[in-house]
């Protein structure tokens, strides 16, 4: 039985917890706020927290100077494209591993995981050269291919850990109830697998969205997703804090929201089921 926590102690932990939480979150909050300042206000000393003239001028400036929407769209295509393609390849594989395991299944799983340990820089040059020769540099297709491959092991693993938790009993019950293979998959397996597939999708979209090694090295302008778009702010020109903040907010807001929704699956996914 849970014991009641004394109110005073709960009060203290609440204050401490919120204090720490807000401190960690502060850079994001500050970025968000600065995006609504003018460039002059963004560097004003002492800094103003909430009491400034809220303005969208930085957002306007970002959208005029650069094509935010194009990069946003690149990010969407690359992250959803690579995850979708990965799922297409991984679902049958994970299904077979979970429900028709063979002696080598475990070895194959471990080997797949080991490819994830390959440091990207170890294969940067060949991939770069192959892409250069195949005309895939700075294309969305090229990035979709690379990100599919680097996230495929995680996708297979996540699906496998979800599928493995579907009790075999239930599939057998469906068989006893007169369901042929097609009905068994359609009415029983798929509905039970959908939550797992959905959280795999979310987590991998997040990983692909924030991937910043291949996206920086294999794109220039045309196919650059938001990671590379933001990197272009690294050589400052004049006052740019408000613009940087506005662009950053636009780059992280969508995925931060997705991330908050998928936080539970995050642990399982990133530890390959080792911590639940």
């Amino acid at each position, binding site marked *: 039985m849970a014991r009641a926590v004394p109110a005073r102690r709960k009060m203290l932990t609440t204050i*401490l917890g919120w204090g720490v939480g807000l401190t960690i979150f502060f850079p994001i909050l500050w970025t968000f706020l600065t995006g609504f300042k003018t460039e002059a206000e963004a560097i004003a000393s002492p800094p103003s927290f909430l009491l400034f003239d809220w303005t969208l001028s930085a957002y306007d400036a970002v959208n005029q100077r650069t094509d935010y929407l194009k990069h946003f769209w690149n990010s969407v295509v690359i992250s959803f494209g690579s995850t979708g393609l990965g799922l297409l390849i991984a679902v049958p*594989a994970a299904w077979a591993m979970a429900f028709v395991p063979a002696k080598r299944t475990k070895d194959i799983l471990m080997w797949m995981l080991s490819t994830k*340990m390959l440091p990207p820089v*170890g294969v940067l040059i060949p991939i770069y050269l192959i892409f250069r020769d195949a005309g895939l540099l700075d294309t969305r297709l090229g990035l979709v291919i690379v990100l599919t491959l680097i996230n495929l092991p995680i996708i297979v693993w996540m699906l496998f850990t979800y599928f493995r938790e579907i009790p075999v009993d239930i599939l057998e019950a469906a068989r006893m109830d007169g369901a042929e293979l097609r009905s068994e998959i359609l009415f029983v397996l798929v509905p039970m697998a959908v939550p797992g597939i959905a959280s795999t999708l979310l987590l991998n979209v997040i990983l692909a969205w924030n991937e910043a090694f291949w996206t920086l090295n294999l794109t220039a302008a045309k196919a650059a997703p938001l*990671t590379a778009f933001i*990197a272009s702010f690294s050589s400052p020109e004049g006052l740019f804090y408000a613009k940087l903040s506005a662009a950053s907010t636009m780059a992280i807001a969508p995925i931060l929201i997705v991330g908050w929704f998928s936080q539970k699956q995050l642990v399982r996914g990133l530890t390959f089921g080792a911590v639940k």
Partner: protein
Amino acid sequence: MISPAVALLLCWMLVPLGLTLYFSFLRYNLLMPGMEQWTGWTNYYFFLTDPSFWDAIRNTLTLVIGVLIITIIGGVLLALLLDQEMWGRNIVRLLVIAPFFVMPTVSALVWKNMFMNPVNGLFAQLSGLLGLEPFDFFAHAPLSSIIAIVSWQWLPFATLILLTALQSLDREQLEASEMDGAGSINRLLFIVLPHLARAITVVILIQTIFLLSIFAEILVTTNGGPGTATTNLTFLVYAQSLLQFDVGGGSAGGVIAIVLANIVAIFLMRMIGRNLDA
């Protein structure tokens, strides 16, 4: 049904890996196409005897170990805090994990400019208000600054995993130890921390894999400098091959990076493999 996935990964692994290995034995510069020739171990010799290689190794290790220490200790403390009952715990949880979802280029640029900039950064302004000399983070402590930024990004990950592990601790075990006369310090030492040991190992191994390949944070803040002060192995290989166009030398570096990463990977695989049987 497994085979498409296996075949793809096999190609992905073997083809570039084979090429990297092959290039590492060539004299191969992108600026001098057609001049490739077999040079045996020369690239390795030059790469390994280059002082910047040892700087890179030292920086890589400092970066990995520094971030690990900060995130593990901070993560355990935060997990213990978030495990307590408090008002609005779920919201605090969301605040704490948020940095993990921020893309590396954003967090590096925001920290570098808006917080650590010696003139207009928030820290400089605050120390100005207190009458102190502002500190130029990237000039005087470049590697520590990067460690701080990366730690901020990874602290949520460690916290979240340790918190999940903490919540799987059997409450009856705690109550049993309480009946056995253990105070709260002893419960932490003898029950809670041993229970977290496995999760801590997982955090260490997974973070190590990612931390060995830190790249974007360095690229957008210091470009490896000043000098080689913030050049890690990944960045060195990148600079060698795509900035100096020395594919042979870069490839030799890549092979060395792979070997180092594999040493870590072996431990990680053992852990996860054991879990697969359980």
